[in-house]
């Protein structure tokens, strides 16, 4: 992560009071933009990333030299059309791609903050990113969008700032992190914390990272992003470069080899402490509870137009949880559209080439943009 100092970043001077009670100020938010802000400043879309995402939604990520995480959705002529819209995407606080996080250097010790970084929430992430509107002098966003943890940020954003986005696209997410999701996150955190290199979070990034623990965390999480049918069709019981079982514990099966690979490439781009902090923020997310058990109250003042999308084979953030948001919005007569897209690609569907999903978003954004902004004249 040696390229970190070349990233676009804005220093937030304003004090931000975190949910844990601590205050932070003079902290960096790393961001990236795509496309151009038009004269009316009415074409801006703020995209929120998921657990292991970053600000590089499109193009080539200069740190990993790989394609941006939402390359299918963001770019010229794509659903989030950068010929038409001005896309802003920031690294969440707690992240490891240039925003204030556990890897940030503590000026007192000259070492990474590690676990002395405060525990943050989805609400904190959203409040931190809200500063970007001031920075770009945008009065009102055309849209906020995101999948998974990005979707949770969309919900929190509209709840906190009911008048700051015309359209909201929460995709494959939930208003309240389920016990099953907390359980999977805890599994990942335990894998990291039981790696002897973790050292209560005070590992030295250059020499000995808790890579093994982080890789296991990623492997476990990766299974939850796919569907059983998808895995079966892609891998079945196929063997990895061998004709027979070897009666040992090497990767006999392709699925084992695939997961090991996913774990190994992940540790090159992600920080173990960030993984702990961000999964914790997801687990703490309960918008329903924030509003006394009535999710509708979270959106009572909003005029935002919602478009909620779920996927048939997503068992991590299933349709039922997405529908709970639809129901809460309908209960207060909010403007909401909802569709469940048929696919066997699991929770990861929102990141992948799922034509039905991509074309529906593209048409929805284009039509809604012209309905809202062009007919007004």
């Amino acid at each position, binding site marked *: 992560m040696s390229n970190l100092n070349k990233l676009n970043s804005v220093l937030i001077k304003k004090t931000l009071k975190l949910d844990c009670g601590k205050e932070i100020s003079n902290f960096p938010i790393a961001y990236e933009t795509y496309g151009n802000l038009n004269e009316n400043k009415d074409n801006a879309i703020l995209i929120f990333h998921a657990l292991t995402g970053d600000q590089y939604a499109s193009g080539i990520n200069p740190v990993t030299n790989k394609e941006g995480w939402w390359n299918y959705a963001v770019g010229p002529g794509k659903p989030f059309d950068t010929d038409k819209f001005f896309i802003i995407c920031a690294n969440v606080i707690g992240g490891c791609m240039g925003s204030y996080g556990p890897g940030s250097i503590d000026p007192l010790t000259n070492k990474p903050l590690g676990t002395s970084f405060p525990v943050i929430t989805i609400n904190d992430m959203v409040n931190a990113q809200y500063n970007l509107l001031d920075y770009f002098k945008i009065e009102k966003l055309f849209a906020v969008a995101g999948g998974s943890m990005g979707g949770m940020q969309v919900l929190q954003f509209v709840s906190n700032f009911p008048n700051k986005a015309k359209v909201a696209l929460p995709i494959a997410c939930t208003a309240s992190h389920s016990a099953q999701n907390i359980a999977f996150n805890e599994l990942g955190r335990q894998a990291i914390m039981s790696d002897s290199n973790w050292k209560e979070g005070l590992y030295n990034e250059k020499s000995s990272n808790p890579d093994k623990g982080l890789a296991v965390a990623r492997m476990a999480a990766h299974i939850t992003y796919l569907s059983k049918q998808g895995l079966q069709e892609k891998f079945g019981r196929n063997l990895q470069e061998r004709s027979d079982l070897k009666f040992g514990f090497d990767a006999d099966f392709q699925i084992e080899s695939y997961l090991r690979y996913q774990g190994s490439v992940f540790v090159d781009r992600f920080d173990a402490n960030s993984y702990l902090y961000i999964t914790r923020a997801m687990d703490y997310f309960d918008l329903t509870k924030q509003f006394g058990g009535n999710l509708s109250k979270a959106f009572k003042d909003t005029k935002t137009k919602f478009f909620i999308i779920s996927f048939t084979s997503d068992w991590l953030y299933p349709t039922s949880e997405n529908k709970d948001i639809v129901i809460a919005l309908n209960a207060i007569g909010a403007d909401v559209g909802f*569709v469940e897209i048929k696919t066997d690609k699991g929770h990861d569907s929102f990141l992948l080439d799922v034509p*039905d999903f991509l074309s529906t978003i593209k048409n929805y954004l284009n039509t*809604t943009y012209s309905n809202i902004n062009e007919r007004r004249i």
Partner: protein
Amino acid sequence: MKEEFKVISKFIEEKSRVLDVGCGDGILMEFLSKNKVVDIRGLEISKEKVKKCLSKGLAVIEGDAENDLKQFPDLSFDYVILSQTLQAFMNPEKVIENLLRVGKKVIVTIPNFGHWKVRLDLLFKGEMPITKNLPYEWYNTPNLHMCTIQDFYNFCNNKGIKIFKTISLNGQKTSKITPTNLKYKNLISELGIFLLEK
């Protein structure tokens, strides 16, 4: 069926909140949005049709009237529309009850099984009728509960549902249905359009 839409549009007052149950690909929603200042929502069971609606920027949710109407609060819409869909439900009685709970007024369109062509088909051919509005064979029809204008009229009376207006549609021709011409209109109408209140 443009004529049907025109009748429905006339029933609806400006600046009202409207829910189109079984909105299909949103043609009626678009028609109403163009002709009236309305805040309109849709509910549709087919994924393909919901995607079409959302592509047009319409506020449509995927769902099924028999299970998903319950999420809408009492009297949360000025008008709820059910256009030529009642016959396809497992339990039309419950659906009507729910429509009347959600909407201050309810507009229901019935493909009339009492039309003379339908009656003649059954009388002379001895086969289940196939018509423009009912184009299915008996073994693949989604229409589980066909009724006549007279049947629906009786149903409303028995249930104590107020009928404000009833319009007959026969080809391009519209006319009022009244208690005195009901038997005749039940014979010549292809569609019956009802404006109801609880």
